[in-house]
C-alpha cells in the first residue's frame, strides 16, 4: 500500500536557501575568477582599442591627478604678487588667483586647491609624469600575458621532456635531474636575473629565460611522478612488445596521461610567473621603460606615497593581486575537478 502523501506540502525555498543556492553555484563554477581572467586577457588583446589615453605619453601639467571620485584638497593661502620658493605651500600668486576669481587683491586670504579634484577624464588618476593610470594598467596586462605565455610554453616543455626522461630511464638521469632541482631551490634566482639584466641590459628575453629556469623543475617533478606510475601499466608494456620506439611510447602513450595534471600545474604556475615578473620589474629589472608593466608602476608610485599620492602604486598592485588570485582559485577548482589526487601535493 502506497503511503498517503497528499497532505505533504513542499515548502517554497526560503530566502536564505535561495542565497545558499546561489552561493553553491558560485562555489561549483569559478564564475568570478574566470570573469576576471577573461577581463585581463581582453585588456591585453585589445589594449589600444579600450584604453582611453596613450599609456606612454602624458602632460606634465596634468601630473598627480587623483582618481575621478576624489574631491581634492583645499587649503587657505595668502595672495602675493611674487612667490618665493619656500613659501609655496602658503601663498599663491596674484595672476593664478585671478584665474578663479578676478576680484582678489594682494594680501587676501583665499581657498584654493592644494591638490586638484579628480576628473572623469582620468578615471584612476594620473602618475608623476601625467600619464593615465587606467591606460597603463590596461596595457600592463600585455607584458604579464606575453611573459607568462612564452615562459609557460618554453619552461613547461623543458620540464615535461626532462620529467619524461627522468621517470622513464631512472638511475643516473633521474639523480642528475633531482640534483638540478636542488640547486635551483638553493640559488636566489631573482639575484641571478638582476645580475644578467645589469650586465646584458634590460630586455624581455632575459626575463623569460630566467623565469623558464625558475619554473621547469615543477613540471619535471610532476611529470616524473606520473611516468613512474604509468610506465608499469599493461598498455605501455604492450606498446613496448609491439615494437614501438621509446620516443613513441613516451609522447604518444605516456604523455597524454599526464595532461590533466599538467593543466592544473600550469595554471598555478602562471600565478607564480606573474608574481615573479612583477617583482623583477619592481626591482628595476623588467621590460625597459616607458613600456607599462604592473611591477614597475608600483615602483614608480613608491616614493610619492609620503606626499599622499597613493593611486599610482595601488591600482597596478590590485591588478596583480586579482589576476594571481583568480589564477589560484581557478587552478584549485581545476585540480578538484580534473585531478583530486593532486590536492596532497600543494
Amino acid at each position, binding site marked *: 500500500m502506497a503511503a498517503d502523501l497528499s497532505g505533504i506540502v513542499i515548502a517554497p525555498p526560503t530566502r536564505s536557501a535561495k542565497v545558499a543556492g546561489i552561493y553553491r553555484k558560485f562555489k561549483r563554477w569559478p564564475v568570478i575568477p574566470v570573469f576576471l581572467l577573461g577581463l585581463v586577457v581582453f585588456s591585453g588583446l585589445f589594449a589600444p582599442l579600450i584604453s582611453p589615453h596613450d599609456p606612454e605619453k602624458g602632460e606634465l601639467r596634468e601630473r598627480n591627478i587623483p582618481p575621478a571620485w576624489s574631491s581634492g584638497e583645499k587649503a587657505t593661502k595668502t595672495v602675493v604678487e611674487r612667490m618665493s620658493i619656500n613659501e609655496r605651500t602658503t601663498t599663491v600668486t596674484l595672476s593664478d588667483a585671478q584665474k578663479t576669481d578676478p576680484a582678489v587683491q594682494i594680501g587676501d586670504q583665499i581657498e584654493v586647491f592644494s591638490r586638484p579634484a579628480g576628473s572623469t577624464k582620468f578615471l584612476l588618476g594620473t602618475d608623476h609624469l601625467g600619464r593615465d593610470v587606467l591606460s597603463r594598467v590596461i596595457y600592463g596586462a600585455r607584458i604579464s600575458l606575453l611573459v607568462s605565455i612564452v615562459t609557460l610554453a618554453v619552461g613547461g616543455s623543458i620540464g615535461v621532456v626532462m620529467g619524461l626522461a627522468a621517470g622513464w630511464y631512472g638511475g643516473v638521469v633521474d639523480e642528475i635531474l633531482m640534483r638540478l632541482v636542488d640547486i635551483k631551490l*638553493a640559488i*636566489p634566482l631573482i*639575484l641571478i636575473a638582476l645580475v644578467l639584466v*645589469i650586465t646584458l641590459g634590460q630586455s624581455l628575453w632575459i626575463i623569460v629565460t630566467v623565469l623558464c629556469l625558475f619554473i621547469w623543475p615543477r613540471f619535471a617533478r610532476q611529470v616524473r611522478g606520473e611516468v613512474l606510475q604509468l610506465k608499469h601499466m599493461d598498455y605501455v608494456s604492450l606498446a613496448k612488445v609491439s615494437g614501438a620506439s621509446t620516443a613513441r611510447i613516451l609522447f604518444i602513450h605516456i604523455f597524454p596521461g599526464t595532461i590533466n595534471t599538467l593543466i592544473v600545474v600550469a595554471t598555478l604556475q602562471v600565478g607564480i610567473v606573474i608574481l615573479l615578473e612583477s617583482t623583477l620589474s619592481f626591482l628595476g629589472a623588467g621590460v625597459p621603460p616607458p613600456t607599462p608593466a604592473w611591477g614597475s608602476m608600483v615602483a614608480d608610485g613608491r616614493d610619492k606615497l609620503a606626499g599622499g599620492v*597613493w593611486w599610482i602604486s595601488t591600482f597596478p598592485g590590485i591588478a596583480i593581486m586579482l589576476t594571481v588570485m583568480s589564477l589560484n582559485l581557478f587552478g584549485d577548482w581545476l585540480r578538484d575537478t580534473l585531478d583530486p589526487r593532486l590536492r596532497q601535493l600543494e
Partner: protein
Amino acid sequence: MQKFLVRRFLLAFVTLLSVSLIIFIMSRVSGDPRHIYLDDYSTQEDWDRMGAVLGLDKPYYQQYGIFLKGAFRGDFGESVREGRPVTEVVIERAPATLLLGAVAFTFSLLIGVPLGILSAVKRGTMMDAFGKFVALIGQSAPPFWLGIMLMFFFAVKMGWLPPYGKQDWNSIVLPAVTLGWYYAAANLRLVRSAMLDVLDSEYIKLARAKGVNSRAIIMKHAFRNALIPPLTFAGVTIGALVTGSLVVETVFAWPGLGRLAIEALFAFDYPLLQGVVITFTMIYITAAFVIDVAYAYVDPRIRYA
C-alpha cells in the same frame, strides 16, 4: 640514521659546489673585473699586474680553483665599493636579515598553524572563510606591493609604526608581516588539509569512539600528525624567506643582506655580490639540511627511502 646523515651531507656539499661554479661562471661572463678596479688612466702594466694579483692571467679552471680556495677560507676578496674584505661587510649585515627572517618565520607559524587547525576543525563556518581569505590575500598579493600598502596605511596615514629603517623595536613589525604573510598563507593551507585528512582517519575515529574528549583528540592525536607537511615545507620557506628579504628589505630600507645585494649590484661590486649570493646559498643549504634531519628523526620512513 648515520648513512642517511652522510648521504644528506654529501648532497648538501655537491649543491654548494655547483652553486659556486654557477656564480663563478656568471662573474666571468659579466666581464673582466679589471674594468671596475682600473680607470682610463691606468697603463697596460697596471692592467697586467692587477691580472696577476687576481689570478686572471691563468686559465679559467685554475681561476675557479683560486676562487674556491679563497671561498673555503671565507675569503671572497675585497669589496670595491667599501674597500674592505667582503666577509667583514657580510658579517656586519647578516644579523639584521637573520632577525627579520626569524621574526617573519615565527609570524608565519603563529598565524598559519592555529588558523589552519581552526579552519579544519570548524570547516565550513565563518572561521574557515576567514582563514581562506587570509590565505588568498597572502598567496596573491605581491610582497612588494603589500609592503608599500601596509607602510602607507600604518606609517604614513596612521603614524603607528615607523615607515622604514631599523631603529626602534617596532620597526621590524611591518617588514616581518610583509615577508611572513605569504608563508603564513602556505602554512595555513598545509595545516588545514593535513588536519582534514588526519581527522578523517581510523585512529581518530577510534579515539572518538572510546569517548576521548574532542580537545584532547585535536591537540594530542591530530595536531602532531598535521605538523609534518608544514615541517617539510619549512625547508623551502627558509630558503624563500632569504630571497624574499631582497624585496622586503628594499621596500623598508632594512639594513640586511638583501639590500646589500641590491646595493652591490647597482654599484657593480661583484666580489661583494658573490659573497652575498654564497652566503644566501649557505643559509638555505644549512636550513634545508637541519630540517631534513629533523624530519627524518620525526618520521622514520624517510630515513630508509
